[in-house]
């Protein structure tokens, strides 16, 4: 599997966020998108996820433009933005059930997933009562339910505590070791041991 960005350009109003940006990510690699606030990190990730179209250039997944294989591509990718995408009125368990319903993955053991993201014992708690970090952990559970090979993470550490960041690092390391690929943006210093990390500076 290979993801390529070919000469993508993005304009926001009259401002050029980036021009002629190209990169390649292979299986088993992490791409770290770096840049200052407002430099277009989130926009770049939205373009790579297929939510937004670039103003020029294209994103290519296994030699096919993602716009041509949109439905197929979105099943091989999981998108976690800075917004959590969880329903406050439902419990943690119901939220995971819903994200399974929206994906192609089979019915999984929800309690196991909750335990993995450190929310054991909160299965039937309404998400409204969760702290920001717990909501973030619940959002990260989508990485486990969707079973996708490409993870696109926009500021995944936001609101996570030290143990949460460690959990995220473990998830990413494990995923990449299993030949997955990760594209992420981050303000924090990210250090992965024994992983191929590329950087893309905006």
């Amino acid at each position, binding site marked *: 599997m290979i993801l390529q960005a070919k000469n993508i350009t993005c304009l926001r109003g009259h401002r050029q966020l980036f021009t002629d940006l190209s990169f390649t990510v292979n299986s088993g690699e992490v791409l770290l998108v770096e840049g200052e606030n407002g430099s277009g990190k989130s926009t770049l990730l*939205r373009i790579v*996820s*297929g*939510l*937004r*179209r670039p103003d020029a250039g294209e994103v290519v997944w296994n030699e096919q433009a993602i716009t041509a294989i949109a439905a197929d591509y*979105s*099943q091989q*990718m999981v*998108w976690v*933005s800075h*917004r*959590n*995408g*969880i*329903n*406050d*009125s*439902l419990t943690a368990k*119901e939220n995971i*059930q*819903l*994200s399974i*319903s*929206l*994906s*192609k*993955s*089979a*019915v999984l053991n929800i309690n196991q997933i909750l335990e993995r993201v450190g929310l054991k014992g909160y299965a039937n708690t309404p998400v409204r009562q969760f702290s920001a970090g717990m909501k973030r952990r619940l959002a990260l559970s*989508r990485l486990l339910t969707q079973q996708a090979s490409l993870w696109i993470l926009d500021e995944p550490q936001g609101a996570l505590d030290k143990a949460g960041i460690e959990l995220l690092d473990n998830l990413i390391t494990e995923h990449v070791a299993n030949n997955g690929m990760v594209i992420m943006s981050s303000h924090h210093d990210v250090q992965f041991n024994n992983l191929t990390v590329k950087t893309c500076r905006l």
Partner: protein
Amino acid sequence: MNKMTPFHDVYSLISSEFLVAFRHRYEALNPLLFFVLVCLLFPLGIGPSPQLLNTIAPGIIWAAALLAILMSLSNVFRTEYDDGRLELMVLANHSLVLLTTIKLLAHWCLNVLPLILLSPIIASALGMSFDVQITLILSLLLGTPVLLLVGTTVSTLTLVIPQNGMLLALLVLPLYVPVLIFGTSAVNATAAGMSAAGPLYVLAALCVLSLTLSPFAIVSAIKIGVSQ
């Protein structure tokens, strides 16, 4: 391992819509309460003359229903948009048309159907006879889906604007006028002892048209919304 059927997914998506609505059941009562209050304040304001009430009853009920639906429009996709779930719907394994249809069906059942079920009681209170009430219910059943679908199309297009209530009303009301005219004229025709078939057929045509076309328009509007 793949799932056995997509029906299970559809079922759990629908049931979660109803579950969320059940947990916010007092919010769902708002349009209904508005509808009842408007309909009951008119007789108090203009006096209890049966003839006068009979003349204006169809107009009051239809206008109140229209405004109640307009009020409920701004929250069809609002929370989904704000908390990022709309993006996940776009990227989901199921077609966005299906997900949108489920959402709209749930919204109609929860916000509009109670209003239609209550309308015979309001109509009796305003002195409407039984056969006129039947036409009223028929016209509401055919007309309210049009109001919801057309309104949701516009409200989805204005999702990126944070406080869109006023703009939404201005944009949607002209599109609602034909439905209001045909809805009330069907009821008035029955009250005058004529056949209501003409206006009802027009409403039915509008209903079929919006049922088939607006989900696709809403889907395009959602995609524009999440690409911002």
